């Protein structure tokens, strides 16, 4: 179910990348794909009725499959931070594109060779 949601989100992102002419919408599409992949990776580690992998007073010990898989969560933590970095860098590049070519729509850009 969650796998399906993330795969459909990837499809929506690819569709947006192929049809949109506004560069900001490209960044939004890439961000959607990023989020979808993160959802997919976290979902691969889910265990039914599993708790967050933190040892507390209520859950003091390990028993088989009482916790969800912590490794995908750690990997996604890395991926989210890098996603923020690339998103901010892409948006700041768009500011400069808008200043130089007076538009971020691919068809209305001035001074770009056909």
């Amino acid at each position, binding site marked *: 179910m969650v796998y399906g949601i993330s*795969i459909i989100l990837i499809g*929506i992102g690819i569709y947006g990348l192929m049809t949109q002419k506004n560069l900001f919408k490209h960044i939004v599409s890439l961000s959607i794909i990023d989020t979808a992949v993160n959802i997919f990776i976290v979902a691969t580690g889910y265990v039914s009725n599993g708790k967050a992998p933190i040892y*507390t007073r209520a859950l*003091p010990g*390990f028993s088989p499959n009482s*916790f969800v*898989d912590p490794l995908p969560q750690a990997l996604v933590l890395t991926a989210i931070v890098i996603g923020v970095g690339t998103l901010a860098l892409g948006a700041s590049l768009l500011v400069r594109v808008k200043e130089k070519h007076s538009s971020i729509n691919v068809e209305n850009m001035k001074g770009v060779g056909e």
Partner: protein
Amino acid sequence: MRRLYAILVAAGLIYMLFVFLGTLPLYGKVDLSNRVSAHFLAKDVNSVDVKKWVEGDKQVPSREKIYGRKGFEDESANVVTSIVVNYRSFDTLGEVTVLFASAVGIGLVLGGMKRMGYGRKPNFILRVSTGILLPLIIMFGIYIFVHGHLTPGGGFPGGTVIAAAVLLLYLSNEEFVANMKTSKSLEGSMGSLYVIFGLAGLATGGAFLFNFLPNGVVGSLFSAGVVPLVYMTIGLKVGSELSGVVAEIHEEREG
């Protein structure tokens, strides 16, 4: 026409990925004893035999209490933190470097001389509530990254909360300008401190980013050795870095 092609390509990709799903275990039906993560959950990567362990055999019996005891490889109660900052700490160093590179890139692309105004006075409610909420938000951010080894959270979310406080300052005051020199020097010193922790581990334990401090008891604040210290440096670094990004977004060039 273009939309039709796009729909076809996207649908083909979705179909392909759905076909690949057959090779994965069903959602929620994962067996952790087949995975490497059971080692991390057992807090013993080198010697434990997961199959025996999960069956409740001798080596480390399952259902054994880990909270409140000591003598494990890594004592942080939050297993995700122990993976991110202890077992895969080198990876996190690379991640912090990527974030640093993107912050430098934003500074190069957007850097300007004077602060951009919004062209209207901030709302009265925003101005007054900022004074009340700002210390609470900063304290909450610091709480998140100090308790990163005990509760969900850690350096990256805590740093982001601190950057949100700086953004609130920018929104509520037209004249506010962040001190870039302080933020850059904090960022640089915290980044080097992370490497220094790694080199100290290399000197004392023979491996880069080795956990060289005493481990303590699982679940107490002073536990997990070097993990809370590293997460504090990451928190301050990410906070100053994202504050710098917020400041640079609010700059504009002359003319």
